[in-house]
């Protein structure tokens, strides 16, 4: 049963990943990418890593892919023109593919005993969540902090690149606006007829 589910979900992942690069419409590409993310979350549920699966959906599908979609929809990029010369790169693509497959084979043969049946998603704990929580802030504290630092640098970089100071923009000062009383805003005048103020 688990094998059938694995076969189905893995097929969906591979097919949707193929369609990501095959689709002519860039928005369709992103939608296929979302399906690929979603199905890989299904694979993670299958091996018992439910915490990672949910995080994959929350972070990648729920936030990152939305931004992808946002950008692709807004940008007016001519993807057909962009794809014109891409066929010339196939030797590099082949090389990278071969390297990836070789690495996977190496890991698989080196680990030896790691199969679908012997894989333990939550070593030394009852659930996947507890297993991750136990090592994340202790054993891997440095790596965790490092990842956070990298993200912070990326964020600051993005802000610095896009920040522009425009001097003549009207901004709303909310506290000043809500702090306004009638006496500050209006003035009662008693104009004499024929003379004005």
């Amino acid at each position, binding site marked *: 049963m688990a094998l059938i589910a694995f076969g189905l979900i893995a097929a969906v992942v591979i097919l949707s990943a193929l369609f990501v690069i095959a689709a002519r419409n860039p*928005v369709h590409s992103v939608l296929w990418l979302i399906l690929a993310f979603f199905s890989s979350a299904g694979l993670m549920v299958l091996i018992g890593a439910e915490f990672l699966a949910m995080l994959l959906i929350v972070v990648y599908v729920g936030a990152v892919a939305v931004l992808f979609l946002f950008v692709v*929809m807004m940008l007016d990029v001519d993807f057909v023109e962009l794809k014109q010369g891409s066929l010339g790169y196939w030797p590099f693509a082949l090389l990278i593919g071969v390297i990836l497959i070789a690495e996977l084979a190496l890991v698989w043969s080196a680990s030896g005993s790691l199969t679908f049946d012997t894989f333990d998603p939550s070593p030394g704990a009852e659930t996947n969540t507890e297993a991750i929580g136990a090592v994340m802030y202790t054993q891997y504290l440095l790596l965790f902090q490092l990842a956070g630092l990298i993200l912070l640098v990326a964020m600051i970089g993005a802000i610095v690149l896009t920040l522009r100071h425009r001097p003549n923009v009207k901004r709303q000062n909310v506290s000043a606006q809500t702090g306004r009383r009638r006496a500050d805003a209006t003035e009662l005048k008693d104009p004499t007829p024929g003379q004005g103020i």
Partner: protein
Amino acid sequence: MSNAIESLGSLWGPLLVLGQIGLFTLVLLLSIAFLLLLDRKIWAGVMMRKGPNVVGPFGLLQSFADFGKFLLKEIVIPAGANKFVFIFAPILTCTLAFAAWAAIPVAPGLEGGTSWVISDLNVGVLYLFAISSLGVYGIIMGGWASNSKYPFLGALRSAAQMVSYEVSIGFVIITVILMVGSMNLSDIVNNQAGGLQNWHAFSFQNFPLIVVMFPMFVIFFISALAETNRPPFDLPEAESELVAGYQVEYGSTPYLLFMLGEYLNIVLMCAMMTILFLGGWHGPVAIGANAAGSMPPLLLSLAGLFWFMLKILFLFFLFAMVKAIVPRYRYDQLMRLGWKIFLPTSLAAVLVVAGYVTYFGVQS
């Protein structure tokens, strides 16, 4: 994992799950029909109108008449629309809204310590959060596939709005997870047993935390309004600016699915607030272990279901009242509220609750 399936008999498990799914779907659809009417009636009442009152006694059958009308209309697909995505978007919205209910525990199970839920996930809270964060795709796909300006603008607004408010919802959920120490929804509900004072919104057992938790409840409520595109945050479909936002080109059954998904999401948010903050199926007064032990378990289950539905109904009433009495926000004000007020407040709350849990421990 203990769940209702095991407590009711393990032999016909899959059949039972199917039956439960059917039951949940039926009950949800029926309640949505009447909640829609309630929404319109409350809105009308605040405006001193009568509201729908023609079809059936007190207009009770109005939703069913509308349903028939939507089904019989012709589906119009605009020229230049992306046909598949156009039809797929409302289906996705509706499916996701139903899928989330698989993890909601609605009542205590027949055996002690169990709960009535289709699937008692260990990461139930995360599942709900993930499903509700997927809801944005229905809207953004529908808006894009319509090949029209207003729907597209509505979809963009909606995407930005939902992503922004998800952040503060996530932090609010983390405060509750910290207090319970589990992401299982049944554990979260059972942590609040023993009456009104133990509900997470008040949390008297960890006394000073009420200063944090009650504001968190309010933030969750307001963020839920924004997440479900309800007034005062219904900018994606602001009729004075965008006609009806992403729904402009939709009619007939696809529109019905969008509307159904929207209301299902509202009820889901009410259920989430009930589970996270208002004690789930636990009543406001504890009846004591002796009294509970002498009662038949079925009665306790039904009582739990009653309290759960009553709380959802109360929260839905609040949603409807907010729609009737609060004017719509401007888009920049909406973003300011989300990023400059809710995000820092909820982040600070996570720090405070985490510190409290670490140094004083939680009494549950």
